[in-house]
C-alpha cells in the first residue's frame, strides 16, 4: 500500500503541510500498478504500430504524402529557449534528415520489437526508453496524421521511460527471482510516475471540458446529435432512439458530467470506482459506435493508475479465489525437490494464486501406458507468464527425471486437476 496521506491539522506548520504533499507525490508504493500500466500501454503501442505498418510508405517515406522535408516544415523549426539569443535546440527526432528506407524501416521494426519487449517487460530499462524516443521521433516526423490517442500514448510512454516500470509484472523480475537477485516482494518505488499519470488524465478531461464550455452545442445539449450523424465515424450500429431526443441530451450532458468527474471527483476515494466505471462505460460506448481507433482503450488503460499496487494485487487474488476450483496443485514425490529457481519465481509468475506446490507426496507416478504425466499441463492459463516463457515444462520444474513428478488428483480443492487428469488418461488410452 502506498504511504497514507494524512490531512494536516489546523495550525500545522508549513513543514507539516509540505510533508503531506511530499508523501502524496513521492511516497513509497508497490510497483505493481506501474508494471500493469506498462503492459497495457506497450501492448497498445504495438497495435498502434501494427496499424501503421501497412501504410508505412504513405506516411513515412519520401514517396508518401509527407516527405521528410515537408514534415519538418509542418512541425516548425528549432526551438529557442531564451528570447533574444541565437541558442537553438532541435526537437527530439533521431531520424532528423534521414530519408533512406534502409534506415527508417529497420528503425520502425525495432520499435515494434521494443513495444513487445516493453509489454512483457524484458530488458525494460532500455526497451521502454527506446520505444518512447522512437514514438516521439515518428510523431515529429509526421505530425499531420496524429490523433488524441497518439498524443496520450506518446506522453505516457515518456513517463514510463523515466520510471522503474519493470520492477513488477515483468520478465526482468522473473529473471531476477530465478537468479535470486530480486527480493520476494518487489522493492517499493516512489509513486510519482503513477501520480503523474493520474494528473495527466485529470488534465485531459479538465481541459476538454473547459474547451467545451466555449462551444454552443455542449451547452444546448445537442452535441451527440451531430457526432452520431458523421458517416465517416460510423462503426457499429446503435438503436435509432439513442440518436434522438431526449437521449441525445442525456448523452451530451452525461459526457460532460463524467468527464468533469474524471478530472476532479475521481481523487475522492469513495467515489473513485463508480466514476471510473462511468468512464469505462462512456469510452466503450464511444468505441462501439464511433471509429476512433484505440483512443478509448488508451484512456481506460490509464485508469489503473488510480489504484495502488496492493489494491491491484488484492484484486487479482480475489479473481483467483473465484477460480479456486481450478487450482493446480503440483505434487512432488518423496525424495525429489522443486528447483529452487522455480520455487523463487512461482509466486511472482502466478498473479491469481492458482498454482501451488505440495512436496513429499507418495503415489502413482506414471499413467497407464507408461508415459510420463505432464504435471504442468493446464499451467498455461493459470500462469500465462510461465507458459510464454516456456518454463512450465516438467523438466524445468524439478531436479530429477521427469517421470518422478506427478499430478495426483485427490483433494477436493483439486477438482479441475482431477478432470484434466481424467481427460489425459482417457486420451492416452
Amino acid at each position, binding site marked *: 500500500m502506498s504511504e497514507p496521506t494524512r490531512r494536516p491539522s489546523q495550525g500545522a506548520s508549513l513543514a507539516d503541510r509540505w510533508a503531506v504533499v*511530499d508523501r502524496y507525490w*513521492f511516497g*513509497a508504493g*508497490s510497483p*505493481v500498478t506501474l508494471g*500493469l500500466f506498462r503492459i497495457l500501454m506497450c501492448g497498445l503501442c504495438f497495435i498502434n504500430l501494427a*496499424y*501503421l505498418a*501497412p501504410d508505412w510508405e504513405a506516411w513515412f517515406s519520401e*514517396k508518401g*504524402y509527407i*516527405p521528410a522535408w515537408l514534415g519538418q516544415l*509542418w512541425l516548425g523549426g528549432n*526551438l*529557442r*529557449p531564451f528570447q533574444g539569443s541565437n541558442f537553438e*535546440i*532541435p*526537437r*527530439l527526432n533521431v531520424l532528423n534528415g534521414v530519408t533512406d528506407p534502409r534506415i527508417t524501416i529497420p528503425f520502425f521494426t525495432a520499435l515494434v520489437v521494443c513495444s513487445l519487449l516493453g509489454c512483457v517487460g524484458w530488458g525494460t530499462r532500455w526497451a521502454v526508453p527506446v520505444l518512447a524516443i522512437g514514438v516521439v521521433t515518428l510523431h*515529429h516526423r509526421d505530425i499531420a*496524421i496524429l*490523433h*488524441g490517442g497518439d*498524443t*496520450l500514448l*506518446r*506522453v505516457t510512454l*515518456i513517463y514510463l521511460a523515466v520510471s522503474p516500470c519493470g520492477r513488477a509484472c515483468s520478465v526482468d523480475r522473473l529473471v531476477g527471482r530465478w537468479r535470486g537477485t530480486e527480493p520476494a516482494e518487489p522493492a*517499493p*518505488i*516512489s509513486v510519482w510516475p503513477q501520480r*503523474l499519470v493520474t*494528473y*495527466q488524465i485529470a*488534465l485531459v478531461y479538465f*481541459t*476538454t471540458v473547459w474547451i*467545451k464550455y466555449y*462551444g454552443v*452545442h*455542449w451547452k444546448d445539449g445537442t*452535441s451527440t*446529435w*451531430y457526432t452520431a*450523424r*458523421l458517416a465517416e465515424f460510423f462503426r*457499429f450500429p446503435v438503436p435509432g432512439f439513442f440518436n434522438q*431526443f431526449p437521449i441525445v441530451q442525456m448523452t451530451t450532458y452525461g459526457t460532460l458530467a463524467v468527464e468533469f468527474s474524471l478530472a476532479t471527483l475521481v481523487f475522492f476515494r469513495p467515489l473513485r470506482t463508480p466514476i471510473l466505471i462511468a468512464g469505462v462505460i462512456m469510452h466503450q460506448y464511444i468505441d462501439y459506435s464511433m*471509429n*476512433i481507433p484505440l*483512443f478509448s482503450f488508451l484512456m481506460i488503460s490509464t485508469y489503473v493508475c488510480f489504484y495502488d*499496487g*496492493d489494491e491491484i*494485487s488484492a484484486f487479482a*487474488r480475489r479473481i483467483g479465489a473465484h477460480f479456486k476450483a481450478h487450482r493446480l496443485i503440483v505434487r512432488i514425490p518423496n525424495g525429489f525437490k522443486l528447483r529452487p529457481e522455480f520455487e523463487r519465481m512461482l*509466486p*511472482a*509468475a502466478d*498473479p491469481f494464486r492458482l498454482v501451488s506446490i505440495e512436496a513429499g507426496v507418495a503415489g502413482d507416478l506414471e499413467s497407464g501406458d507408461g508415459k510420463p504425466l505432464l504435471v504442468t499441463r493446464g499451467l498455461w492459463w493459470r500462469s500465462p507468464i510461465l507458459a510464454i516463457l516456456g518454463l512450465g515444462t516438467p523438466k524445468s520444474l524439478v531436479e530429477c527425471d521427469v517421470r518422478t513428478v506427478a499430478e495426483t488428483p485427490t483433494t477436493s480443492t483439486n477438482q479441475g486437476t482431477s478432470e484434466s487428469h481424467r481427460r489425459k488418461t482417457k486420451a492416452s488410452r
Partner: protein
Amino acid sequence: MGEGGKTPSLPHRVSPYFKIFFFFNLVCITIWALPQPPAALKSKGVQPVGSDWILLFNDEHLKTNGIVQTYVLGTGLWQYWDMFAPDPAQIDFYGDADVVYRDGTVKTYAYPRMADLPIALKGPKERYRKFFERVREDKSSRLWPSFGQRVALVNYHDPKNPPTSVRIRRNWLPVAPPGQKQETEYHHYVFFEYVVDQAMLQKDGPRPQ
C-alpha cells in the same frame, strides 16, 4: 501482480532536485494543455470574464515563454485535448481526386473513405481521414502538392501513359440541426489542381495494377 503484502518505506529518498523538476514538468504540461482562448477574446472583441482571464494570460505570457516551449515541444510532451470541442464537427466530409492521364483519360481516385471501408480496416486506415481533415483546410495549402504527387504515384501503372495532373476534391455534407431537414447530396469542390512532377514520378516508378 500477485506480489502484494506490506510495502516497506523507500530504500532511497527522492532527490529534492528531482522534485523541483517534477513540479516544473507539471506546470509546463498544464500551461500547454490549457485551451486557447476563443478568437473573439484574443482580438479583444469580447470582454473577458471569469476564467477567460486565466486563458488569456496563459496564452499571452506563459505559452509563449521560450523555456516552456522548448521543454514541451522539444521532448514530445506537447498536447491538446480538443476532441469534439469546443463543438463537434457539423459537416461530414471525405476526399477524392480526378487523375488526368497523358492520353486525356480521367480516372477518379477514391482516397480511403472510412464510411466505405469494412469494419476490420476502419481502425488501421483512420489516419487517412485524420490527414484529410487537416489537408482540406486552406491553411494547409503547403501540404497539397505532395498530396497530389502521392495520388499520381498511386495511380501510375503504365510508363507510357503517366498521370499528368491531379485535381483534389473535397466532398461535404452539413449535418442538419435537430428539427431541420437533412440534405442527402454531398457538395463537391476541387480545391487544388496539381501538375505532376514527371521526373519524380519516373524516379519513384510505376505501381503494379
